[in-house]
């Protein structure tokens, strides 16, 4: 991955200029559960339950989440290895949601997949030459200079030797097998590569080799990646934008820097705080850690409202009843949460914590809660202040000087409040004070949803 491409300026200022390669809207994949003699459907595993995102040419979209959140199913559905049960998939502007096998065939060249298990994804009875040349045979492509030469070139491209052509998969180590899988995926010069946990089965030192290889190939061949992984450090390293999934939904979709520096969804924050940092000095800083209670609920009957409300330490009544929409709160950062971190509260009127949230909050260090309240209060106060400036004529020039202290006061009040209990929820008090002005930033924020 070129360094220029990775710089923030490029990612944040010019994401719209790149062409959209893949657009997914309301994608659903429900696996039916059947019971009884008649095999009547009694329920469904809602593996993917309505997700929207787009992938732009040349970028890498990382998808993270715990096991069972539907990220692998999502990968298989967008490559049409599994049929979606709802929603639409557009590839280069063409609707591929309902294409049949014959219709998909020419597109298979452009969409390829790298699988997680380098042992299960290579046929043990075929030679490496046979495996890597299969795409040419199936698509009836005759590369320049012949298939064998092209396969040997591919093997060299991924760091294997051309003499490996006649060997069998069992003669290779895990890392080498993963390279074979990559060579096969790249044979037909695809436009989009979906990689499902490409490095999780490999040793750390080998993992780095494969990550670097994928970087180089992207630069060389202008590939677009969707990388699905559970390892947040790897995803941070390879992705331009990152989608965080929880129980079949995207809860946050943001640029890499924004997501890691100022995550807005409490789940994202918890997920990142749980990653062990290879620095023994940070061990004492346990206060940063947010422990989540229990396990991910079943996707057969996901919790009502916000699916994370059963484990969230900020959950209130509205989280139980109303599902938050994925809204662009900051440019390039879409979040589905009523009470986001690092931002103004989206449902400030709702301040009573659910009992589950109170229990969950016991596991969250006070420092974390205090800091989170402080930042949201500051953001809210600034937002309210600027709204006041433009909205209220009477305030005039004094608004400029008035807004600064107000933000500070709000922050100070909040810094002490959490000690008295679940005070984190009182943060939005600042914008409420300003009366009608507070509705304005709210309206502004909702705007992006309408488009």
């Amino acid at each position, binding site marked *: 991955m070129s360094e220029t491409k990775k710089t923030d300026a490029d990612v944040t200022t010019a994401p719209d200029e790149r062409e959209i390669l893949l657009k997914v809207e309301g994608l659903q994949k429900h696996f039916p559960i059947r019971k009884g003699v008649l095999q009547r459907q009694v329920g469904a595993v809602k593996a993917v339950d309505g997700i929207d995102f787009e992938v732009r040419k040349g970028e890498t979209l990382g998808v993270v989440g715990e096991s069972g959140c539907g990220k692998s199913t999502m990968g298989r559905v967008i490559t049409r290895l599994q049929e979606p049960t709802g929603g639409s998939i557009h590839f280069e502007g063409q609707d591929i949601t309902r294409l049949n096998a014959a219709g998909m065939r020419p597109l298979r060249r452009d969409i390829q997949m790298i699988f997680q298990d380098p042992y299960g994804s290579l046929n043990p009875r075929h030679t490496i030459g046979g495996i890597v040349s299969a795409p040419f045979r199936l698509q009836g492509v005759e590369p320049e200079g012949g298939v064998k030469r092209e396969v040997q070139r591919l093997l060299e491209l991924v760091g294997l030797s051309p003499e490996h052509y006649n060997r069998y998969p069992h003669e290779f180590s895990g*890392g080498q097998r993963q390279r074979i899988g990559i060579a096969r995926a790249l044979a037909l010069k695809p436009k989009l590569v979906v990689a499902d946990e490409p490095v999780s089965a490999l040793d750390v*030192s080998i993992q780095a080799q494969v990550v670097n290889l994928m970087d180089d190939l992207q630069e060389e061949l202008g590939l677009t990646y969707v990388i699905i992984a559970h390892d947040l450090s790897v995803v941070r390293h390879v992705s331009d934008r990152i989608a965080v999934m929880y129980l079949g939904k995207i809860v946050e979709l943001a640029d890499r820097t924004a997501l890691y520096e100022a995550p807005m969804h409490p789940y994202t924050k918890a997920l990142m705080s749980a990653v062990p940092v290879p620095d023994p000095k940070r061990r004492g800083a346990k206060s940063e850690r947010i422990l989540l209670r229990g396990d991910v609920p079943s996707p057969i009957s996901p919790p009502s409202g916000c699916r994370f409300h059963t484990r969230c330490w900020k959950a209130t009544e509205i989280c139980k009843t109303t599902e938050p929409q994925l809204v662009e709160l900051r440019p390039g950062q879409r979040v589905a949460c009523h009470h986001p971190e690092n931002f103004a509260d989206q449902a400030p009127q709702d301040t009573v914590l659910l009992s589950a949230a109170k229990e969950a909050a016991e596991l969250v260090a006070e420092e974390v809660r205090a800091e989170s309240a402080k930042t949201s209060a500051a953001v809210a106060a600034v937002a309210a202040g600027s709204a006041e400036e433009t909205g209220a004529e009477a305030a005039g020039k004094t608004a400029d000087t008035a807004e600064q202290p107000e933000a500070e006061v709000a922050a100070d009040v909040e810094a002490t409040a959490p000690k008295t209990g679940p005070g984190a929820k009182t943060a939005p008090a600042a914008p409420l004070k300003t009366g009608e002005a507070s509705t304005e930033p709210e309206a502004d924020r909702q705007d992006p949803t309408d488009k």
Partner: protein
Amino acid sequence: MTELSKTGAALGEPAPGNAPDAFLAVRDLKVHFPTDDGLVKSVDGLSFQVEKGKTLCIVGESGSGKSVTSLAIMGLHRLGARGKNVQMSGEIWLDGKELVSADPDEVRRLRGREMAMIFQDPLSAMHPYYTIGNQIVEAYRVHHDVSKKVARKRAVEMLDRVGIPEPDKRVDGYPHEFSGGMRQRAMIAMALVNNPELLIADEPTTALDVTVQAQILDLIRDLQKEFGSAVVLITHDLGVVAEIADDVLVMYGGRCVERGSVDDVFERPQHPYTWGLLGSMPRIDRETSERLIPVKGQPPSLINVPSGCAFHPRCPYADIPKGDVTRTVRPELQQVGGGHYSACHLSPEDRTRIWTEEIAPKL
């Protein structure tokens, strides 16, 4: 680790046969498996010590001998058909008792009671036909002459202790009814039911999600504090090591290449392989637009371990020492600081220079 620095035991040349001061001491352990293709030297001369209440992390790639070491301590290589096909030598001292030469029945009495193990994959480590409760009760009754009722009470108590909700109901559940994290908790409960003084955890969190991993590591830490056990934790994740270890042992090709306190190994690593491990890890806590620095090549075959320093074919600095000493002479562990040992031919000056000038700035 104080014991280590003041005696020569750390270097694997103690007075053999004498009981050491440390709670667990392994001296010059060798575990070899004869196969049709040749002798697999899985562990080839390994020494280390662990005190009660301390945690030693063993790190290394797959095939570096980490798991074989743990199974050797538990005496699990000598069981059944496998026992005929292993050559073990060296000493393993647990609380003043030597285990390598001990009678298998004696080791069996210790296993589960004084030393217990947590395996990587709880689904295959637990019996699918028996309830979780049954398996914990069995583990308890093997070592305690108590009624089933008492043992069951103890099982419920342990499940509660490791944070399983409604333990009195879940005790009758089967392993497949538990989620991955819950299963791992149940296995920890099973391992700790006899209050063992040594707990060996072989990749206990590798199969788990990060959120659950954080819970399990916290649990192991809390239980260790409560029971004062010695913990040997095997992992390949340096993040986990930094989180939980007191001491670290880096293994490569069946041997220890570096050993020291967690600060030594992370702040002043002295072996190129350790540098390689640190450089190939993507890190969540830093903005890294730079490339990872992988270790080139493949891990060595344990049948044909490279001559000289086993790491030399992959080492970028193998040509710095004069002559072909890296290719012909096997480096021994040498003390490079209080309680910090490294097996490398590079001179201390070269190592310090390479680490501070070339490696550390890129991490």
